[in-house]
């Protein structure tokens, strides 16, 4: 199926600055809304849902960088685990504040992601996806069955790590109110989307788009595909690892089953694919739609008929796949374009002329 939207300009929801200033305005408005929500919404559970939306938007956007390289990764949870375990272990064993620990985790995640991806990138299509699943599962199984790891690191096997409670301790990334986590998650989401946006507009973005469109043609134009795919993977891995540290600090526990499991990898990928694969805002949109749905379904229906929440979630996915194969991003962009047609012509033309 031919995608009628330009791959290379899949920037902010599909628009570059001169093409649809309206698109940027709308994004700005939504972001502003997110900024002020905690002033109106007080319930911790509602804030929790928002935090989860931002968190999965962050992870989905980070994951999406690998999609930009044309590969489908179904093993990103492993990197989540690497990040979370690294920062938590550093905190538990050496008292290093998770604020720094998460940066270390990001480096470790980036390096390991790069090492694994380098040989795996030669694999096309589903084989890369399978390899990513294998990698994640191997790592998870290893951690799950290892009490004490190399160098005497206590991995605590299946039980996982419990983050030592310090009460309200901002210096070590622990807060007793949801608002703090809310803004941190919002900031992380903003940073991830911005990084993705900037990459798309840069040489790296153009090269990645070229590689996934036609790698041979790209190479003939001077593109070192391995290098750029690797760059995408390393950045993606590092960001995902950051997400893992946030996970640990938010839930106070990190274990192989939940944090590094296949289910988590698939959740991340689902958010990205449903929202709009290989687009900048796709994962964010996907998270906004899917995360509250799954959370609320679980809360209200989880107990009722067994699995009803999962059925509805599944139904939602089926609907999106059937009617919106390019993700939710697509009709949303069309809507914005239709709206922009009503914006006074002079404004848009003026911006076009300056380009």
């Amino acid at each position, binding site marked *: 199926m*031919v*995608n*009628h*939207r*330009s*791959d*290379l*300009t899949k920037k902010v929801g599909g628009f570059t600055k001169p093409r649809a200033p309206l698109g940027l305005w709308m994004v700005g408005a939504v972001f502003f809304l997110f900024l002020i929500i905690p002033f109106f919404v007080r319930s911790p559970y509602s804030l929790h849902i928002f935090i989860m939306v931002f968190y999965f938007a962050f992870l989905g956007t980070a994951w999406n960088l690998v999609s930009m390289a044309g590969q489908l990764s179904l093993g990103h949870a492993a990197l989540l685990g690497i990040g979370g375990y690294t920062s938590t272990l550093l905190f538990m064993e050496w008292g290093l504040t998770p604020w720094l620990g998460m940066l270390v985790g990001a480096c470790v995640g980036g390096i390991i992601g790069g090492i694994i991806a380098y040989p795996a990138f030669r694999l096309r299509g589903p084989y890369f996806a399978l390899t990513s699943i294998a990698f994640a599962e191997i790592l998870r199984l290893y951690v799950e069955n290892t009490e004490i790891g190399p160098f005497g690191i206590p991995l605590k096997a299946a039980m996982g790590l419990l983050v030592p409670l310090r009460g309200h301790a901002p210096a070590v990334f622990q807060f007793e109110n949801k608002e703090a986590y809310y803004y941190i998650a919002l900031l992380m989401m903003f940073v991830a989307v911005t990084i993705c946006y900037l990459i798309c*507009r*840069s*040489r790296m973005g*153009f*090269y990645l*788009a*070229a590689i996934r*469109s*036609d790698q*041979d*043609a*790209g*190479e*003939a*134009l*001077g*593109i*070192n*595909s391995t290098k750029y795919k690797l760059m995408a993977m390393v950045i993606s891995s590092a960001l995902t690892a950051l997400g893992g540290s946030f996970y640990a600090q938010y839930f106070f526990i990190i274990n192989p089953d939940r944090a590094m499991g296949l289910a988590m990898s698939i959740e991340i990928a689902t958010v990205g694919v449903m929202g709009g694969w290989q687009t900048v805002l796709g994962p964010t949109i996907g998270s906004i739609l899917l995360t509250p749905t799954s959370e609320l379904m679980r809360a209200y229906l989880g107990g009722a008929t067994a699995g009803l929440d999962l059925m509805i979630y599944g139904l939602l996915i089926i609907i999106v796949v059937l009617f919106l194969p390019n993700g939710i991003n697509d009709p949303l962009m069309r809507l914005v374009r239709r709206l922009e047609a009503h914006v006074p012509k002079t404004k848009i033309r003026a911006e076009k002329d300056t380009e």
Partner: protein
Amino acid sequence: MAFLEVENVKKNFGGLVAVHDFDMTVEKGEIVGLIGPNGAGKTTLFNMIACFYPPDSGRVVFQGRDIVGMKPYQVCSLGIARTFQVTKPFLNSTVLENIMVGGFLRGSNAREARRIAMEILELLNFSDKKDAMGHEITTADQKRLELARSLATKPSLLLLDEVMAGLNPAEKVLLVDLLRRINSQGITLLTVEHDMRAVMSLCERIIVMNRGGKLVDGPPQRVANDQQAIAAYLGEEYVAT
């Protein structure tokens, strides 16, 4: 030291000898045509010069440098660009963006790449189509796009793989003219072609290949009258006695 030297190059595919003991040179600024019947080994030779795959033995020396074993993206940096016989436009991008991909090789950022791309569009009279999508444009325009993209990498040697294929006579005349203009800007051209009229009118020198080896190497007039070349293409019975 010639601009491009191909020395004693051999290539086998399994049991099939595609190219054997092949030598040729190209001087800077020339327009050289590479012709021959199907299966002569033109494309194989072409791909070896473009470093799509390496020769089994022999050297390919570009501007004094042996490029055997390099990757396509490396030789592109050095200044060798190529087009593909079956065009490979980036379908989901606009013409401008396609060309910008080429532009990023020498341009340090998006603005530079865009500027280079716009220049190329002007040069090829292609600016009106700059926002058309890769999958929307006609075959002739796709050929122009291939050319534009390669030119954006600012090559010194441009390898053209059957650029005339799929074009009508009017389009061919325009393309020949365009290629002459490109050459006049200092870019050396080596073109594999089947279209005799185009080759005769465009190329200063023609190399005829047959069965993996070189038959004739000279100006168009000499090649047109060469017995072996005629025999190779049309069969023995057409050779004038």
